[in-house]
């Protein structure tokens, strides 16, 4: 059924269709509508919604529910995410699946509530203590706010690891047509969970490994699962990349503006292509290297001072010139602004950079 829906609300609709039956959160702009939708929907379908006393409490409620085997989630924005980082580290360390939605706003500190993409490091590179990874998915539409939230639950269970849906204020606040269908969801059995039953009595959920070798083994085993995810889960979307001489890379709202720019540029005959990572971790490095094969210049655009940029550079390891264009504070580049950035890099109008490392 097609319906007009706000991105933040779509998150909760997707979550419930994915079998999520518990939400613990704390209000924060621009993510609050997710909590509001959870508060409205969940109690009507037998689920739990609690507005926690803080994000610290919320993520630990998530920890408890996940330990008991529930499909559970929370959502927040930058400052709240910072408060959750300790809990996320515990969730990863105890190998508990859950979904965390971050609707990014401007930072650092209180920053502002306008859209940014400055939590990339905090989610993709960790943020909490210890050797762990989050699975990170980046929706670029209201439809994907629902579908990637659903995928996040599946991946979280598959790898017994927190999965983050990394959206921005605009994707959270905008409304688009949302097409959802109800289907029975397949939630995998969780024999490791602590459920207060005779069968699960022997189970312990914990992230403590006091002995050096035990903790190293635990980390190695987590590493192995991260490698499995890196091989199996990278996802991306490409637009006009086959013959692209200039490859633009962006995720979330930026990818939408880039797409409009590429459409216009292509209409004018400019050989521009768009690469949009859907999974930020695992990063689609191989697909990016392939998409950039013909490019002389790669331009990364973010609402940050250059965070995903590092992963693009790692993926291309000096084989291509990688430039960056970023806006911050809630400023989103216009199609025209990005068009100018690309035009300045058209090979015929600039020197050839092939093979050159910036």
């Amino acid at each position, binding site marked *: 059924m097609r319906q007009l829906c706000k991105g933040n609300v779509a998150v909760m609709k997707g979550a419930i269709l994915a079998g999520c039956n518990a939400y613990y959160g704390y209000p924060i702009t621009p993510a609050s509508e997710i909590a509001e939708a959870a508060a409205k929907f969940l109690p*009507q379908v037998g689920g739990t919604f609690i507005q926690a006393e803080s994000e610290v409490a919320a993520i630990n*409620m998530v920890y408890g529910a996940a330990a*008991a085997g529930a499909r559970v989630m929370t959502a927040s924005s930058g400052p709240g995410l910072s408060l959750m980082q300790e809990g996320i580290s515990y969730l990863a360390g105890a190998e508990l699946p859950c979904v965390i939605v971050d609707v990014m706003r401007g930072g650092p500190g209180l920053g502002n509530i306008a859209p940014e993409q400055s939590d990339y490091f905090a989610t993709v590179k960790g943020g909490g203590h210890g050797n762990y990874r989050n699975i990170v998915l980046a929706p670029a539409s209201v439809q994907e706010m629902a579908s990637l939230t659903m995928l996040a639950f599946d991946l979280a269970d598959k790898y017994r690891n927190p999965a983050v849906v990394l959206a921005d204020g605009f994707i959270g606040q905008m*409304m688009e047509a949302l097409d*959802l269908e*109800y289907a029975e969801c397949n939630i995998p059995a969780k024999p490791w969970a602590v459920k207060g039953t005779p069968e699960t009595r022997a189970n312990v959920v914990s992230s403590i490994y006091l002995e050096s070798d035990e903790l190293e083994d635990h980390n190695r085993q987590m590493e192995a699962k991260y490698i499995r995810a890196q091989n199996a889960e990278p996802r991306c979307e490409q637009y006009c990349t086959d013959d692209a001489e200039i490859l633009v890379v962006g995720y979330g709202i930026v990818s939408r503006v880039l797409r409009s720019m590429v459409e216009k540029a292509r209409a004018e005959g400019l050989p521009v292509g768009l690469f949009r990572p859907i999974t930020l971790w695992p990063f689609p490095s191989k697909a990016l290297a392939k998409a950039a094969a013909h490019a002389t210049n790669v331009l990364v655009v973010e609402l940050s001072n250059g965070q995903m940029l590092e992963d693009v550079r790692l993926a291309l390891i000096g084989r291509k010139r990688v430039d960056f264009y970023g806006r911050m504070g809630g400023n*989103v580049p216009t199609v025209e602004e990005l068009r100018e950035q690309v035009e300045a890099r058209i090979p015929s109008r600039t020197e050839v950079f092939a093979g050159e490392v910036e």
Partner: protein
Amino acid sequence: MATDVKDERTGFETYEAVHEKSSVFYDLYERKSDLKQQTHYCPGCGHGVAHKLIAEALQDLGLQDRTIFVSPVGCSVFAYYYFDVGNVQVAHGRAPAAATGIKRACPDKIVISYQGDGDLAAIGTAEIVHAANRGEKITVFFINNGIYGMTGGQMAPTTLVGQKSTTSPFGRRPANEGFPIHMAELLATLQAPVYVERVALCDNKNIMRARRAVRKALELQRDGAGFSFVEILSPCPTIWGKEPVAARSWVLEKMVPEFPLAVFRDRKEPLPANGAPPQRPVIEVLGIKEAINNHGNGKRTQPFKGLSINIAGFGGQGVLLLGQLLAEMGTEQGLEVSWLPSYGPEMRSGSAHCWVILSKSRIGSPLTAKPDVLIAMNEVSLRKFASQVPSGGFILYNGQTLPEDFPMPQAQVYCIPASEIADKLGSAKAANIVMMGAMLEETGCFEPSTATRFLEAKVKNPSLLEIDIKAIAAGREAVDHQVNLGPLSQPDGFA
């Protein structure tokens, strides 16, 4: 108690313990190195007694298979070494939050949060207070020994005035560190808890009292009564630097005068009923089955490629709603749509603004720096956005004429006194609908009948609906009678 048994082989009398170890404890506490015969607790530590009381109660009440034990950070971090029940180890201070998540996931199970004074009364103050205030149906055992044990003797929030610790080397000074915090009394100020008692592990009589309290707290949870809390004053001989027996006396002589033993709450009257909303099928709750406007055939008769619209005005002029109506109509008509509001401080300061895009193909940027249409509900918006509309687009301005000093924009302008028209129709609030009528007439993007049908579904008040329907007609008429200003052409996107 013990009974005498004569060993037939040796002829010696031996003793058989009648109080066997609770079956809720593991038979063996597997430990490494040379500590195989010991628990990880120090000799004389109160945790051992408290563990024993809990394990015995769980056994006697037959709760072993149903129990989930939440262990904190502190000396009892390894409670799962001993309790043969489901175990969840959690972050420092957060046990009541984690226990909340567990209990809500397993409402018919017994969830125990076992915490020390640093964990519960310092770093976890917010979590315990709010779990208690929500009336979580869990049981919290709070071991108060007035000191940080695991980290080696730092001051706790319950350290006595004058008591020395590694971080209060001159004794706790109220002027510097404040006074010992009384958690049982504090929690008993809340309405939701059903049972709050403080007991002490200082002598046999008090240990028996503690035993009853532990049992009662668990029985209350078993019966679904609500939040139960037992504060247990407990000796810490190692850190206090006392012999075990002297440490017990110290509990009685020094701690009990500061922390009186009492039942602070024993709620008899029942808590309010659940009050949860009626249960409905998921498809209904999520609006998957039936959307509000399921009448459309998803087909349009008008030739149409796409349209970007910028709507701006004061908050309260229905700016965001107008945008949503257009987006909703587009959704029903099978178009791709996006609606993006300005949000936050701008919204709160009284101005409102949204972008709407309607398109036959996938929408890239939901933002548009060059909208085909600007609906400016006030002069501020006109001044701010008019220059963005390119030649070929048009502006609907809520006013009789353009402001005198306003430079003629490159786009075509229609001045429609929408507020005045709406006011005459009976409600100034319908100004946005007047503008919608004008926009539909000028662009032909939706049939007026579609708009009418939407309003009928949305507007429940019959007299308001009548005004709105008149407003559409008035807007269409107003734009038809306009003397066009600026160049004449259709905006991009119209065939």
